[in-house]
């Protein structure tokens, strides 16, 4: 399958933070969630992909092209949605569009108007007077109106209320899946991804913990709960990730659910872990190490 985005051994050093050996690939027509706690390296990764910062090593290719050598060709085919709108707030939607559109060869004015209507946006509205959600929708309309094949979204739902987030995700799901576009969706609100993501790449402390199909992730990691005495059982040693102790017992993550169930029987209960659980316990596990 054709990779629209490929990162191989990407590194970036800052004083006090290093993005190390980041590798993952996203294929055409799929949605990848880029998750991780604040400061994990998600935005740095996106800035590297957009060539807003320079990588110290590794390969970044979009549509099989190096993102630095073929920067303009690549950016023609990429749409972006950032957490805060990077456009002049004193201008109206129509004015800002008139400044952006000329830079895209494949800009489709009719499509843009259609998205404005669909997203309930008034072209004469001043950007500063729009809600955060409307600003995100405007960015999305721009991203979709120049026939972008890859949409890169950096925390697009942060700061939005749950109702608006859900609405935005529905729009994303409909528009993007219908048009067969690929999406890289960075967020720390992992519930957003349970709906729309096909793949999950989890970054923590500048390193990729895993990059897998979402269903594989949800299958691989299971939530284990049990009484405090279970923690003293030598058979659980090395099988629990990010143990959280409480008065009544413990909860943890495991990738050895079958083995634990076989060996401990009713002493433990196994539950499906959400992406949120997986992220929280894995981060906790790293800290415990």
């Amino acid at each position, binding site marked *: 399958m054709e990779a629209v985005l490929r990162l191989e051994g990407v590194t970036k050093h800052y004083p006090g933070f290093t993005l190390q050996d980041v590798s993952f690939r996203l294929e055409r027509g799929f949605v990848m969630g880029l998750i991780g706690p604040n400061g994990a390296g998600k935005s740095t990764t996106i800035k590297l992909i*957009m060539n807003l*910062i320079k990588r110290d090593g590794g390969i970044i290719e979009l549509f099989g092209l190096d993102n630095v050598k073929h920067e303009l060709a690549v950016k023609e085919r990429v749409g972006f949605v950032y957490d805060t709108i990077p456009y002049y707030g004193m*201008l109206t939607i129509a004015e800002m569009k008139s*400044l952006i559109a000329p830079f*895209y060869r494949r800009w489709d004015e009719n499509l843009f108007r259609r998205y404005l209507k669909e997203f309930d946006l008034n072209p004469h509205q001043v950007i500063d007077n729009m809600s955060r959600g409307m600003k995100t929708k405007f960015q999305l309309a721009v991203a979709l109106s120049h026939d972008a094949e890859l949409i890169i979204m950096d925390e697009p739902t942060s700061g939005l209320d749950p109702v608006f987030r859900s609405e935005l995700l529905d729009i994303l799901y409909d528009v993007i899946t219908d048009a067969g576009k690929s999406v890289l969706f960075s967020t720390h609100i992992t519930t957003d991804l349970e709906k729309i993501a096909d793949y999950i790449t989890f970054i923590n402390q500048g390193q990729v913990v895993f990059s897998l199909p979402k269903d594989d992730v949800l299958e691989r990691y299971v939530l284990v709960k049990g009484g405090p005495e279970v923690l003293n059982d030598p058979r659980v040693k090395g099988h629990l990730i990010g143990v959280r102790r409480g008065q009544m017992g413990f909860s943890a993550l495991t990738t050895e659910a079958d083995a634990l169930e076989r060996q401990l029987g009713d002493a433990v209960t196994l539950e499906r872990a959400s992406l949120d659980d997986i992220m929280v316990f894995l981060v906790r596990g790293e800290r415990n190490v």
Partner: protein
Amino acid sequence: MSKLIHLVRRDLMVHKRERSLVVPALLCVAAAIFLESTPGFAVGLITTVVYHVVVYTNAYDFKYNVQLGYRSLPIPRASLIVSRYLSALLIFILSTAISILASAAVRTAGLFNVTRGWTLSLVALAFCTVGLYFSVYFPIYFRLGYMKSRWATYFLLLSLYTGLGALQGLGAQVGGGAVTAQIFSGAVDAPVLAAAVLGTSAVLALSMFVSIKIDQGREL
């Protein structure tokens, strides 16, 4: 080329809804009035007008984090730099034109006892002043960013006024024969003016090259 035009259009359009152009317009008129008594100050006012508009444009970029958006668009990086120089040049042309019109209007109406208008040598001096100022301003701005460059470029503007004042004083002292006196009286030979304008243009081109180099190493 069309991308450059759209970038320059952007630099002008961001002032559309703001009152930030009222002050520059008044300064252009003030420059027309001050031509009579202190032509060096009038030239300084034109530089201030260009400074004001450019700084506001940069401030809007900073306030709205527009660099992030524009650098994510398919625009050559050098175009983003060159367009700022072209915008400054365009603002200089517009402000000088407004001041020339204001000067003609004031003289025709017989206001403020103004009898002197803009001469070619004063316009050339204004171009050289603006050109040399922004040859220093832009590399500082692209190196340090808006917040860190604010005070440095402001004090640079103040020292430019001091320089122009000194130049005017020197012209008054040495009499009609010296070049400085000729500039303010409007009697400079065309080859001298052409050399000054070409020299300033060369410095601007060099500054543009330096700014592009600085920007290549810049990260957001």
